[in-house]
């Protein structure tokens, strides 16, 4: 039977924990709003990019690029976008479970985020590179990752590259998803990011006839790597939004649990205190009766 002092001590410690998780929940919700905002402000760019891409594809005619080359897949690369920190519920567990499904002997990993690279190191798989990205991903960070993956592909070190990231569906739901990155198959319209529905639409026909300078093929040739960079950028934003919302929910649960625990402990404490008082009264009265 714990003493009242033990219970008091426990209540205090649970209270402290609740305070911390509450604070973390606030921070995560602020960051989540920022991450969603960042994804939204990229929307005009995505729209314009779609238009340019559609026009360039229509104007280029028969066009092939080394990045579009289909090869037999002997070795595949996986860009694994995870979070840097834990305390975000099952987010990374779910993601890494997917990551573990790739064939151990033929897969090289390119990791963004520390949790992913720790996972690859722990399972002694092949890690090609590790990148970091900030709370609000910068385009330069995405470019570095995408450049690296493109080089792996162009040098023939891998024959296919996939991206594995956590897709932001809603604040309460995030799903690990795998997308083909290289070779570029059919050009698909970029999504505007953090929208919920994520089925990419096909590019519409460009209605205007454009003049290209220097040539359509050149413009498209330069546009493709950029298109890939931008895709990675969007994946990073999705992953970040997922991470922050997962953390917010996890911390909210932790706070709620702590509050429930405090309630239960307080009840127990009061019961015990009451019992002690009753016992004391009983002792006093029985002593008085014995004296009388």
């Amino acid at each position: 039977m714990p003493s009242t002092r033990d219970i008091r001590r426990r209540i205090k410690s649970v209270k402290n924990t609740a305070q911390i998780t509450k604070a973390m929940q606030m921070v995560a919700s602020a960051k989540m709003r920022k991450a969603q905002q960042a994804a939204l402000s990229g929307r005009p760019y995505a729209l314009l990019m779609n238009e340019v891409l559609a026009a360039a594809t229509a104007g280029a005619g028969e066009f092939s690029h080394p990045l579009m080359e289909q090869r037999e897949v002997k070795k595949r690369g996986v860009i694994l976008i995870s979070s840097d920190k834990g305390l975000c519920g099952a987010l990374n567990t779910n993601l890494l479970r997917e990551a573990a499904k790739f064939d151990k002997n033929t897969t090289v990993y390119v990791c963004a985020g520390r949790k992913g690279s720790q996972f690859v190191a722990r399972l002694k798989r092949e890690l090609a590179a590790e990148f970091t990205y900030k709370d609000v991903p910068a385009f330069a960070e995405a470019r570095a990752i995408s450049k690296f993956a493109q080089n792996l592909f162009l040098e023939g070190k891998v024959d296919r590259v996939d991206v594995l990231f956590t897709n932001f569906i809603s604040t309460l739901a995030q799903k690990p998803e795998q997308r083909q990155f290289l070779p570029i198959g059919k050009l698909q319209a970029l999504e505007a990011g953090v929208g919920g529905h994520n089925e990419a639409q096909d590019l519409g026909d460009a209605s205007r006839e454009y003049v290209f300078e220097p040539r359509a093929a050149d413009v498209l040739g330069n546009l493709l790597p950029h298109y890939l960079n931008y895709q990675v950028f969007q994946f990073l934003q999705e992953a970040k939004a997922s991470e922050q919302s997962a953390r917010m929910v996890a911390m909210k649960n932790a706070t709620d649990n702590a509050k429930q625990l405090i309630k239960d402990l307080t009840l127990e404490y009061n019961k015990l205190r009451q019992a002690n008082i009753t016992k004391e009264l009983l002792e006093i009265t029985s002593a008085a009766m014995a004296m009388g």
Partner: protein
Amino acid sequence: MATIKLEIVTPEAKIYSEDVDMVTLPGIEGEMGIYPMHIPLMTQVAAGEVAARKGGQDYFLAVGDGFVEVTGDRVAILTDMAIRAENIDEAKAEEARKRAEARLSEKLSEEETATVQAALLNSLTQLNVKRRQRR
């Protein structure tokens, strides 16, 4: 007088969106001036200075590499970096330039070099635009 809508967007934000009389931009094959009713054109921009003329006055912006889509009533520039001349912080750009140069002298992997070079180019462009402004 007809106007043309100039839009400059980066992945992070929409930097500029206004109706202007004329746009001068740094194409990869030399500087281009674009007036309203231009034929539809698709090309690339190099890092440099975009000038937007509006009501007889020029407004300058520094832009990085990117793409341009011109239609009769719109000029859309997609770029990595864009900043209005009046917003350029010279000290900060100078510092960024120094940092990038210092990093270049270190031993770097290829993609790091590319990233740093891009950063260097961006800060140099900003500095150039700012300095030309003052003259």
